[in-house]
């Protein structure tokens, strides 16, 4: 039941925060912070209680609640969290917390309405990670986009309206494909068994291989690939990121991108084993291409946030590679990569917000030599950039190494080119540091260093990155049972397909 309470808390917290604005502009922020604290406590309680999980066919479920919603189509309020969902929910709450605290960097007016949208986006994300009914999953999938679009559109920077619309068109448009795919799956299942149900577990157990399987899978994959983002469908990300306010960027990069990755792991291979097996080589190729393409484009940018946005495209290429390599190593690597990317890119976006707040621009040509003026800010940006380029000892490396390990079994070439992507990461990460902090200072007026409070928040992120980098075992143990269960479900196809894909 804690899951429903958690989502309810976030939703109610949003409304209260909005109402709180009437009593003063500081109220919404404190309400939001207390809400996030309570949420954090609930989630950690959930994690510590993980050992007492309820075991059902879909893998060991930690929390599980079910109630009827629309019996006509067999739709139910079915929430459940296994290791995979739990870890991502924890990430959502942590980054939500960081976003709330970083909100006042550039959100000055209508603060209450902003926190309302922020908390509702987080509630939507938690809903996506824990919904086990495909209809409910889709409702949260679409519902979390509108508050996010509002955040970009109302509190963003220059071209915010266009960026918000592009963001919505891309994600909603592909969401419609997902909706059609879900309905096609449900109708096909109804055709077979005469039973109306949107329930993930029953659809899993059905294991029917319907004629249009590949098309249905494509509907799922395209929707998740747009959200991931996968390269050809990624062009909304840089615009959305550059125009979003700092807190918006942190949540967008840290949480919303992960819903795409989560969807790929949870729904594609287990529901459509054969079709996923057919699709795997192409998806892996696109993943690798994404890594390299993202790296090249990141280097080419002169806008700080656009560079970080393209670096996200590159990092998410690893996740795509890991998901479709479909071995335990690569899946765990993909999950760790998602967590690490959330923390490191979230940190980089907070840095971007701080820089823009001080210097009035994101254009790196007008930066340069800032290390003299802001050593603390420079040091922290360096740490996050170094994490982003995958330095061992920080979290990204663990994710990327495990993905390489898993990919090697599937295809040597993919692993080789992915490793090349890690070299690309060095190029753009160091370029970021060079253009912003090194070189002769231009004597920019707004230059002043971080105050201790901001350093405290970012230090927490750095500690998490180092903790996850040097001791990822607790996370690995939590996700292992869930991912093994998912692998078992897509297992029959893997063995059959073993010879087919190995030749690549």
């Amino acid at each position, binding site marked *: 039941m804690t899951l429903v309470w958690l989502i309810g808390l976030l939703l109610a917290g949003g409304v209260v925060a909005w109402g709180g604005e009437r009593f003063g502009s500081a109220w919404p922020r404190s309400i939001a912070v207390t809400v996030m604290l309570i949420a954090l406590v609930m989630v950690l309680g959930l994690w510590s209680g993980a050992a007492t999980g309820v075991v059902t066919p879909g893998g060991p479920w930690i929390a599980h609640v079910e109630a009827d919603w629309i*019996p*006509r189509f067999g739709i139910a309020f079915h929430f459940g969290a296994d290791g995979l969902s739990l870890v991502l929910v924890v990430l959502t709450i942590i980054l939500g917390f960081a976003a709330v605290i970083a909100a006042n960097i550039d959100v000055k007016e209508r603060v209450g309405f902003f926190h309302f949208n922020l908390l509702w986006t987080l509630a939507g994300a938690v809903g996506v990670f824990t919904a086990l009914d495909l209809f409910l999953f889709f409702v949260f999938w679409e519902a979390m986009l509108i508050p996010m679009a509002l955040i970009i559109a*109302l509190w963003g920077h220059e071209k915010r309206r266009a960026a918000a*619309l592009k963001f919505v068109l891309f994600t909603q*448009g592909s969401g419609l494909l997902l*909706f059609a795919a879900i309905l096609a799956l449900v109708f096909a299942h109804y055709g077979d068994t005469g039973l109306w149900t949107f329930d993930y577990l029953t659809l899993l157990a059905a294991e029917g291989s319907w004629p249009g399987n590949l098309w249905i899978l494509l509907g799922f994959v395209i929707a998740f690939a747009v959200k991931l983002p996968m390269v050809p469908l990624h062009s909304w990300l840089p615009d959305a990121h550059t125009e979003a306010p700092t807190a918006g960027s942190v949540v967008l990069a840290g949480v919303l991108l992960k819903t795409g990755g989560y969807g790929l792991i949870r729904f594609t291979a287990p529901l459509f084993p054969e079709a996923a097996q057919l699709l795997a080589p192409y998806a892996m190729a696109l993943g690798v291409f994404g890594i390299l393409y993202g790296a090249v484009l990141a280097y080419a940018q002169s806008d700080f946030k656009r560079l970080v946005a393209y670096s996200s495209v590159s990092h998410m290429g690893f996740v795509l590679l890991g998901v479709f390599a479909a071995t335990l190593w690569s899946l765990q690597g993909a999950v760790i990569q998602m967590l690490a990317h959330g923390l490191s890119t979230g940190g980089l976006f907070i840095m971007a917000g701080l820089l823009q707040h001080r210097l009035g621009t994101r254009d790196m040509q007008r930066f340069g030599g800032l290390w003299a003026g802001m050593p603390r800010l420079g040091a922290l940006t360096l740490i996050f950039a170094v994490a982003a380029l995958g330095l061992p000892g920080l979290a990204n490396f663990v994710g990327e190494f495990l993905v390489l390990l898993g990919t090697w079994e599937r295809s040597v070439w993919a692993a080789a080119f992915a490793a090349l992507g890690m070299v690309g990461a060095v190029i753009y990460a160091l370029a970021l540091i060079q253009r912003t902090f090194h070189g002769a200072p231009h004597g920019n007026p707004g230059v002043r260093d971080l105050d201790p409070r901001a350093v405290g928040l970012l230090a927490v992120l750095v500690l998490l990155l180092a903790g996850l980098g040097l001791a990822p075992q607790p996370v690995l143990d939590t996700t292992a049972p869930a991912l093994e269960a998912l692998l078992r479900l897509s297992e029959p196809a893997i063995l059959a397909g073993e010879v087919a894909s190995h030749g690549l």
Partner: protein
Amino acid sequence: MVFEDFLALAPLLVLAVAIVIGLLVAALPGSDRMMAGLTPLALVLALASLPMAAETAPRLVTPLLLVDGYALVFSGLILVAALLVAVLSRAAFAGRPGRPPRLQEFDLLLLLAVLGALVLTGATHMISFVIGLELLSIPLLALIAYPRDEPLPLEAGLKYLVIAGVSSATLFFGLALIYAATGTMDFAAIARTPTAHPAFVVAGLVLVLVAGGFKLSLIPFHMWAPDVYQGAPAPVTAFVGTVSKAAVFALLFRLFEATGALASPAPLWSLSAIAFASMIGGNLLALLQQNVKRLLAYSSIAHFGYLMVPLLAGGTFGAEAGLAYLAGYSVTLIGALAVVGLLRPDASGREAERWSDYQGLFRRRPWLAGLFALMLLSLAGIPLTLGFIAKLYAFAAGIDGAAWLLLAGLIAGSTIGLFYYLRLALALFAPAGAVAGPADAMPADATGLTLPARGLLAALAVALVGLGLWPQPLIGLVREAGTLAATEPPALSRPDPTEARSWTE
């Protein structure tokens, strides 16, 4: 006509009586206030009589009207929509400055049109089809041009008159052709009777489809819609967009189901082409539209393009999906037009149809702007709104009927639709700085709305979000409509033939 027949026709009779009383009352002084009470009362009574009529359903009353689950649920939808329009019209016209307009005629025309719509939902015979359609169209002309001292409504009314005339001619020609070929006017019989000229029947059906296409404002018969939507006062636009279209859809669905028209390729292919064109064309036309009422017109073209998917899917699920979609769309459109009608952007009393009226509205009228944003999200089909349930049914019908091309059109159309719905929604929240202009002239007080208006808006909001979150009651009701195709229409109940006597005795 045994007593059960009268019971079956209860809703129609209640309305008829109300109209007659209305005509009598019109002569008395102070009739405006009386009519203000009479119209909603009549509609509520008609609604109340529906369950009574339901006991006798399904029943063929005179070969013209078949009162079954399908007809009754559609009648319910129409009556609810009409009630909302009636309340809205009172509130909207009250808001106009200058001498209060005399609304007796408005109410009478409204009731007449609703009567026509009810006839249409039950029609299974060409005569009832024609009577219902004309009874619905003629009052509509007057309603559209009701504020006769303004040029735009007159122009809209005239255009509607001419085009409705052309489409009625087409309709009669089509029916004549069918009658010529089959010799019968009863829908069910048309399919059964062998005919020497099948081409005539096909041509006739196509012509009926064209007339229906006009009424439902599908592309290429849609051109009247934007001008009429813009010209007519907001309540009448709501009436045109919901009641008249719902009634015509109900009839077309029953006609095509009964005559099996969609089995033969011609109507099927032309309807699919029309549907696809409407979905894409409607949305494209609305892309950069600056006038909100014309934008809603184009959006209704697109939405009725989506509605063709359940019509093509047919069968019990088609009826259920069609009705659910109409319910969702009607509530949303009335809600949107309620805001357009009730929002007085400036002292001139004109309706808020310009884009600038909505720029940054959220800062001045948060509740109205919030409701309008909710309606736009529902039109776009975002979850947690009734519009999403409508989209669920449209998609489900598409997949059930395996109409992949139309499904693709549905997805593409919805995506394009997202653009202009959200562009308008985002404009609502635009920070004050973005626009100077007439925003300051807006009377900031929210008290401009009368009590019934606020009640109406609250009811619409609750319906939209409530049913969006918990659609089960609507779905239960809607499934009832699905019973149409399942059962054969019952035999005509006639008095005992032995007692047959000439009328003169």
